[in-house]
Each structure stands twice: as C-alpha cells, then as structure tokens.
C-alpha cells in the first residue's frame, strides 16, 4: 500500500488466436497520470478494459492496492477496487439517452448500495458542481448537452464513488480543439484537488504529453517504451516512439518541415 496504486504484472490476453496483450508490466502511482499511447490495434484499449474488469486477461496479475483484481468483474470487486471508474471516448454513446443526468450520476452509488435516494440528490449537486455544470442539469437528458458538456457529465459519474483510479479511454478525441483543451484542464484540476490517479489512453501524443506524468508507448500488444513523460515525448529511445513523435504534424510550418525531413531520414535509415 505504498507508492503504487495499480500494478500490472505480466498480463497477457488472447482473443482466439490473436495475442493482443503480450506480457504487459505497468504501474500507476497514487495521484499520477500514466499516459498510454499507441495506434489502432496496439492493445491500449484492451489493457484499459482489463483493468476495469470488463475485458478478459489470459494470464498475469493486476494488483490494485495490494489486491489482485485481474479477471474479476466490477460487480464482484470489493473495497476500494469497486470504486475504479471509467471515462469513455464517445460522449454521445456513453450516456444512456433515455435517462436523466441525475439517474446517470447516481447509478454507481445505487449499484454499490452506498446511499439512500434522498442523500443521492445532494450528491448529484456536488458532482455537477465539481465539473462546473449548473444544478438544474440534473433533471435534463443527455441530448440537451454539447459534446464537451456530456464529457463533463461522464467525468462527474466517474467521480461519484470517490475513486482512487479512473481509466480514461480517449476521453477527448471526439471533442473539438477548444473544448478538448478545457476538458483536459478539468481532468488536471480534479486530479490536483482529489489526488485521483488516471490511466489515460490516447492515440494523440500531444494530448498524452499535456496530462501525463509518465508515458507508456504500445505497439502490437507490447509496451515498447515506458518512462517519464518528458523523456519519452522529447527524447524517445525506441525507434517506434521516435516515428510516432515525428509523424504527428506540429502546428508550425517551419518546424513541421524540419520534422518531416527528420521522419524521412528516420524511415530511410530504418
């Protein structure tokens, strides 16, 4: 129970003949954000789902605050492990369109039998407040909100059980540029206030760099590089990370031309 909140030890997952997670070792410390970056099919989402208990693992252990939760479904998790929460990519489908915001927000509380209904209403107001949404949002439906606002609601739902860990699966990639920055700031602000740890899954290195303390790079089911954010995103060691970094176009024509040349040189060298 010390400096590590979640510890993946030699985690493997197979989907039929496909080996989608290959001997994953990854730690997240309390109050820390670990960015998990990779391209489609790299296994980053599968790892996130395995930690949440909604995806399978074939072997290995996932230790959360000293307790092995690998392969244990969320409803069977005990103690603090039951409070691990998620924020998903698409704010349009992660909220049930026919439920009010209040019903959505109290679902985790009700599921864990933690609060009486009357108590829950006060909780809902507190949660909405934490994500800077007005109190009257509680009685409205998801369709009345914009993408950014919906993602705030999803974050509020994740906070309902005061979790120590939230797995965020591409939580800003469906949002517009300006909205994306504001939602990322909210993530940071909540972390600094509550000390929650994030496993932050994204395909976008610049997003990951913005929010993470440490970064793991995945490719083909493996973690190819894992280290301090600055080191991985500024001075990567692995060739793939280098390519990933150089491939993302930067919003500056002069520097982008340099990057392009560097990427070309790297590909030629490879």
């Amino acid at each position, binding site marked *: 129970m010390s400096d590590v909140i979640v510890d993946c030890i030699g985690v493997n997952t197979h989907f039929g003949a496909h080996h989608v997670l290959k001997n994953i070792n990854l730690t997240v410390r309390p109050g820390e954000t670990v960015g998990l970056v990779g391209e489609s099919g790299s296994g980053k989402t599968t790892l996130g789902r395995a930690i949440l208990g909604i995806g399978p693992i074939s072997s290995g252990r996932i230790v959360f*605050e000293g307790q092995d939760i690998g392969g244990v479904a969320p409803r069977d998790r005990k103690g603090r492990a039951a409070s691990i929460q998620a924020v998903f990519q698409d704010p349009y489908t992660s909220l049930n369109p*026919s439920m009010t915001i209040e019903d959505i927000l109290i679902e985790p509380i009700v599921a864990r039998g933690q609060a009486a209904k009357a108590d829950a209403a006060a909780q809902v107001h507190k949660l909405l407040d934490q994500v800077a949404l007005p109190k009257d949002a509680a009685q409205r439906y998801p369709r009345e909100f914009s993408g950014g606002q919906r993602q705030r609601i999803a974050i509020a739902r994740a906070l309902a059980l005061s979790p120590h860990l939230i797995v965020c699966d591409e939580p800003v990639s469906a949002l517009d540029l300006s909205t994306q920055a504001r939602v990322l700031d909210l993530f940071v602000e909540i972390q600094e206030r*509550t000390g929650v740890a994030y496993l932050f899954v994204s395909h976008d290195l610049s*997003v990951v760099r913005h929010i993470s303390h440490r970064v793991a790079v995945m490719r083909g089911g493996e973690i190819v590089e894992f280290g301090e954010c600055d080191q991985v995103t500024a001075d990567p060691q692995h060739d793939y990370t280098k390519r990933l970094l150089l*491939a993302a176009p930067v919003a500056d*024509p002069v520097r982008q031309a340099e990057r392009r040349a560097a990427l070309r040189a790297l590909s030629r060298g490879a």
Partner: protein
Amino acid sequence: MSAASTTPAPASAPGRESIVRSVLTNPLGLVAALLLLLVIVAAVFAPLIAPFAADDLQIFKINAPPGDGYLLGGDGSGRDIFSRLVYGTQNTLVGALIALSVAAAIGVTAGLFAGYFGGRREVVMSWVADGLMALPALIVLLAFYQSLGSSIHVSMIIFGVMLSPGFYRLTRNLVNGVKHELYVDAARVSGLSDMRIIARHILLVIRAPVIIQVSIVAGISIVIQAGLEFLGLGDPAVPTWGGMLQDAFANMFVVPTAILWPGLAISVTVASFVLLANAIRDRLQQGDRVATAPKIPAPAPHPVGTAPNDAAVLLDVRELVVGYPTKSGWTEVVKGVSLQLRRGEVLGLVGESGSGKTQTAFAILGLLSTGGRILSGSIWFDGRDIANLPESEMQKLRGKRIAYVPQEPMSNLDPAFRIGFQLTEPMVTVLGISKAEAKARALKLLARVGMPDPVRTYNAYPHQISGGMAQRVLIARAISCKPDLLIADEPTTALDVTVQAEVLELMRDLQAEMNMSVVLVTHNFGVVADICHRVSVMRDGRVVETSAVQSLFADPQHDYTKLLLAAVLDDVTPRVYRPVQAKEVSA
C-alpha cells in the same frame, strides 16, 4: 468531426415521454386507437350490443337481405349476421391475445438472454428460431389439427410458438446493438449486475420496437385464426369471423354480399393494429427523418460579380450561402463564404465542427445532402459559374476536372466490388478509354500511390485491405482522370498518425507532380502547417481570416484564430509528479 454537421443527431429513444400520448397526437394513430377501443368494447359488452343471441335462428331469414331487424341480413342458417359479428369479436381477440402472449413471452425472453450473454446458448436458440421460421405455419397447424382438436385456442398457442422467432430475432438484434454501447460498459464498470443492466438499460431500448412487433403480430394472428376457421378447423358452436366467412363462401352464389361483413371486420381490426404500429414507428424515427422538399421556395440565385480576369485563379467562391430546409424556413449553414484558389495552390479550410467547412466543400462539388441548396453566391471555376449548374452539367465536371477524397476510407469504397473495378469504372466513364487501357493505368496508379503489390490490391475487395491502403486507393481514383481541382475532406482524420504522415507525403508529391489545386478541409492545425500554402479559418458558416500559412501561425489576426492556436497542445511543459498517499485521498 466535420461529419457531425452532416449526420443527424442519434435518434433519441422516446425516454419517459409517454408513447401513448405521442401516438394519440398522430391522426392515424388516434383513429387506430379509437377503432381498437371500439373492437374491445364490442367484445366485452357483446350481449348488450348484439340484438340477437349468436345462435338465434329464424328459418324464414336464411340468406335474407339486410333489414327487418337483421341489420346486415341473415346467414345460411338464418342467423343475424350483425349479432354474430359482435359475438365473434370476443373469440378473435382472445385468440390473438393467446398467440401474442405466447410469442412475446418466449421470443423476448430468449432474445434477451441470447443477445446479452451470447455464446453457445445463442447459437442453439438461433438455430431453433431459424428452424421454426422455415416452417409454413398454416401447414403445421393443419397437420396438428387432428390431435389438437377443434379448439382454436390450442392452435393459437402453437401458432404463438411459431411466431416467437420474430420476437426473438428482434430482441436479440436490439440487445446486440445496445450491449456494446459505452453506457452499458459504464454501467458494468459501476458494478451493476447483468440483471439490473438488462432491467435498467436494455429493456428501455427494446420497449418501443417490441410494442410495434406486438401490434403487427396481433394482426397476423387474427388473419391466421380466421383462415383456420374459414377452412372449417374451428369449433362450429362458437361464432367466429372466419367461420362466418366460411358460411358466406358456401352461399356465395346466392348472396355474394355476405362475404363483405366478416372480411371487413377482420380487415379493419388488423388495419388498426398496423396503423398503431406505424404511429409508434413514426414517433421513433422522428430523429432520422430525411429532410423533405422545402415548402419555402429558395431565392433565385444570381451570379455575384463576373469571372475573375486573372487566369491564374482556378476557383473563386464569392459570398456563398448554403441552406437546408427546416419547418421554419431555410437554415443557413454557410453564410457568405468567399475563397480564392490559384492554380497549383493548396488551400486549407480549417474550423471546428459546425463551422460549415465540409458544407462549403460539398457545395463546390455540387453534392450537398438531401434538401441542401446553394441559396446565393457564385462559384467561379475556370471562368464559369458552377453554382446551381444543372446536375447533368455538374456531372461532366466531377471526376474529370474536380475530384474528391473523403474522410472515412473504408465506408467510401463499395463493399460489393473489387478495387480494380472501382478504380477503372471512373476512367472508363469519364475518359472513355477501353477497359484494358483503364486496367493498365489503374495498376500504374496503384504502384504510384505506394501499393507494394498492385495486382493483388487490384483484385482485392475493400474489406481485404487496411484503412491506410483504402485511402491510397481513393486518392488514386481521385487523381486517375487528372483533375484540376481536388477537394479533400479531412483525408487523414480517420488514419493512424504514422499512416497520416505517409498519406500527407503522398498527397504533397502528387500535388506538386500534377500541379493540382487542392482544397483541404481539416480541423488539425498540424496538417495545415504540413501541406497548405494558404489557410481560411471558418467559424459558424463564415470565413474569419484568410492568410498565407506562415503568417497565420506567426501572426494570427482574428481573435478566434488566436483562441484556436492557443488550444493546440504542441508545446506544453510536462507535469511534475508529487507523490501522494492514496489513503489521504478523498473526493
């Protein structure tokens, strides 16, 4: 991103708004509900409504014409047709109710379990359902008749079983669709049990479609039941609509009109069920209804200015306004956009979702979504105003002089045809070359866009290649007829970042090689910096700023441009980790 402005919002389930109320506000729904109410009242209060008992016969009224106490005349045994119709209602509704309950109970339960849990159980249940559906129901009921006896109700139980696959398939497909929704994942993460997820999230979604199915199955049951009775398989002692039809059939040459009444009773009742189902369906589909033709006439377009006299300008869009019809009039999505594109130039059209950048691109192509119209402004292309050009004229330009590269590579290739066919088809159509010539060119093009094995790609179906390869194929197809102008709508957004770099590289090379003009729609400033010469920043249907790419990033003029550039996350200092003890944490 940009797709959000063209695709309608996801159809929202009716939620807690009452389905009943929404059906009653639909005129046809109201009529159907009233008719059904009438039928139910007739069934319940039959003895009060019918002037005669069902078996009351008067010999001198055999096949009598209407009148003299017999409202609709007498049947072949001299009984009052009207009274028997009223009494027959009861039997009809009970039969339908039996079939319906059995079908729905079996089908929905099995569908819920098969859909939610999947696996081997689903395979077995689906096989049984397929088997049941492969049996002609009426034949089975006929075959069982001897052992089931003349009680139509037992037959209706069997019929209910035979109808249950309809409910099963419907429910299973709905559950399969919804169980991978992220909100079901979220509920699972919250710790909800499977049963509670089904009760809370899944039943909510399947409720309305199941009600529609109930309504339709009720109709089918009534028809089949009448059919069995018509064939003489019912209990002759019970007055039924089918039995009455049988009697009328026997006397058809004497009183042909007698076949009308029971048939009408059946048809009107069934039609009420169907109309009720339609009313509910209309309510559900309100979200994705296709825009109908505008009631308000669009203002007559008139050219803005004259053709640009600078021959180096290929495309000159002036004060373009694009609108879509809504109930309250034309809603403008592009509100006076002006753009200029020189030959051999790449113009970035950048903005957030809803800024009108994609609609501007589609307007240039003449391919606005259903109902969309250019309301005013001009699109001067190579000295000619192509805004509101007749479709036949536009078609001659597209592919040959103006080409298009879409956002989502996989959905933009026809899954039913080989890549080769899809590559050669435009060349054969537009350039009028032979198929063999087109094939030779297509193979060259595939090699040019970086396919490692052109012949293999040529013979592949779209689902056999990756997204990055599919985008290369689409680019190859777009440039196959050597267009002057290429409209690329977020051409790399759906791709992985390393593939994006390769595709951008390819587009840059091809553009330079062919000296093409390109309009590149994107939300990504990195892509803009990578490939564009000039940039127009769009917001809310207007261009707020146009400048050369270097000056846009070095010295943005408009506040909105500054705001967007500030939101770019390129240069942030990494966060510093301060260890905390998990135990101290509380929200």
